[in-house]
């Protein structure tokens, strides 16, 4: 029963995905879905090996993953302390909260020429835009996480006469972790979208330009195979974030 509980969700998820691919394969083959727009999943599978061998996917994958990692670390390193700062200083919060929220909805990718001027056509431009795009949800969710700590937990800390730092380290931060990590996941998504998008816009390298080249060659299986590698970067980051969260808060 325990083994079933442990493996059933993963098996169901994987089984559902395989069923979806089989359904797409059939629908493309019988002509319900246009094969020029959506390639056969089996053809995408075959193309995976081809893009690895012929398109130099590995260095591109590492470049995109590295840029995403750098942007992700900066998002966490700047976003969480900024959120804490807004939580600590109410005036600062009231002065900037709406601006930060507005930033979350802004199409930041459009300011890439400005960053090109500052950083040149380099990974730094891509990382900078990825970071700025990922910051608002992390800042806002960190603020929400700390503001939402149940007052009774703070009173428990006070009753044990904790210092400000002890209160932060042992109660406020662990209590806020799930909300902060919800923000981090969102921030990482925003950062990755912008990393791949700016790679494509400035044609610097990585998976973004590869997807563009393959689609312009009308190599649809190859395009989808390259997209699979972008998804792989995303999956790896999500697994890493989940690991960190479980380490910080085992009962999450």
């Amino acid at each position, binding site marked *: 029963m325990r083994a079933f509980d442990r493996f059933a969700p993963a098996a169901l998820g994987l089984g559902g995905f395989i069923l979806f691919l089989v359904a797409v394969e059939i629908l493309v083959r019988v002509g319900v879905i246009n094969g020029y727009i959506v390639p056969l999943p089996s053809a995408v599978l075959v193309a995976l090996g081809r893009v690895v061998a012929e398109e130099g996917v590995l260095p591109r994958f590492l470049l995109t993953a590295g840029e995403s990692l750098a942007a992700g670390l900066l998002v966490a390193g700047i976003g969480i302390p900024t959120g804490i700062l807004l939580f600590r200083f109410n005036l600062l919060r009231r002065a900037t909260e709406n601006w930060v929220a507005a930033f979350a909805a802004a199409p930041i990718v459009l300011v890439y020429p400005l960053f090109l001027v500052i950083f040149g056509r380099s990974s730094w431009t891509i990382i900078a835009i990825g970071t700025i795009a990922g910051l608002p949800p992390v800042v806002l969710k960190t603020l929400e996480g700390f503001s939402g700590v149940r007052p009774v937990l703070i*009173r428990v800390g006070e009753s*044990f*006469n904790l210092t400000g730092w*002890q209160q932060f380290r*042992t109660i406020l931060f662990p*209590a806020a972790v799930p909300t902060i990590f919800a923000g981090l996941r969102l921030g990482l998504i925003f950062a990755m979208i912008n990393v791949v998008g700016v790679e494509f816009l400035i044609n610097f390298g990585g998976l973004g330009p590869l997807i563009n080249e393959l689609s312009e060659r009308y190599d649809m299986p190859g395009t989808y195979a390259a997209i699979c590698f972008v998804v792989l970067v995303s999956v790896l980051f999500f697994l890493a974030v989940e690991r960190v969260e479980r380490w910080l808060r*085992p009962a999450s």
Partner: protein
Amino acid sequence: MSGNQANLKLQPEPAAGTAPAILSVDDVVKRFETPDGPVVAVDHMSLDVRQGEFVSVIGPSGCGKSTLFNLIGGLLSPTEGRISIAGEEVRGPHPSIGMVFQEESTFPWRSVEENVAFSLEVQGVGKAERLERARHFIAMVGLRGFERRYPTELSGGMRQRVAMARTLAFEPKLLLMDEPFAALDEQTRLLLGDKVLQIQQELNQTVVLITHNITEAVQLSDRILIMTYRPGRTKRFVEIKLPRPRTSEIVGSDAFGHYVAEIWNDLREEASKGMHDQETMAERRRR
């Protein structure tokens, strides 16, 4: 001085025993400033609690019980008067006072033993020692076997016992509890009352319990302080002369029923005032 206050002076706190007071609440007043003017929540209240004594404070909703709890626990400062624990004035949270709150207050990110060891951890006690002491108190509250579980895996009553064990592990001179079982059903409350009595007798723990439940107060207490409704004053003390050690079986006795009726007679008038007050406020808001 109002007539009511003059009457109250005729009913001083009974001197039950000669042991010196561990907790002394001396003529304490707590006034809050509000946009509608000052509100007196606690009005010239005095209370002495001796070592090993179990005192309950009972009163209608909104009478200032929780304010008194926060004052004794050092989370609020009195406007007038003085509170001391073992002769030392309470000017903030005090290491001799352990608080158990009404709301569920376990840390969901910590296992049961990590929760209970929390107070020792912040005191700098080594890991092996604090876990050993935590297990001792976990066993005391009847949760042996649940050390590695997380609060989300426990019932409400079990979580309150974890919170109590966490406070007991701190080894406070005074255990101060604010309606810790208010959210639980009556049967669980009675059974947990047994557990509290057992622990109190085992540790000779001094306890102040804030409650609005008459049965709970009579089941557990040596003395009960009845509060008036707004401003919160001492209406009178009732000594509970039921035999010890006690269990929840006492609930069926005639003497128990007599005490419950006696306290309800005192409380009914105050509770009616409270209800009338709340209805008036609701009506005013509706208009």
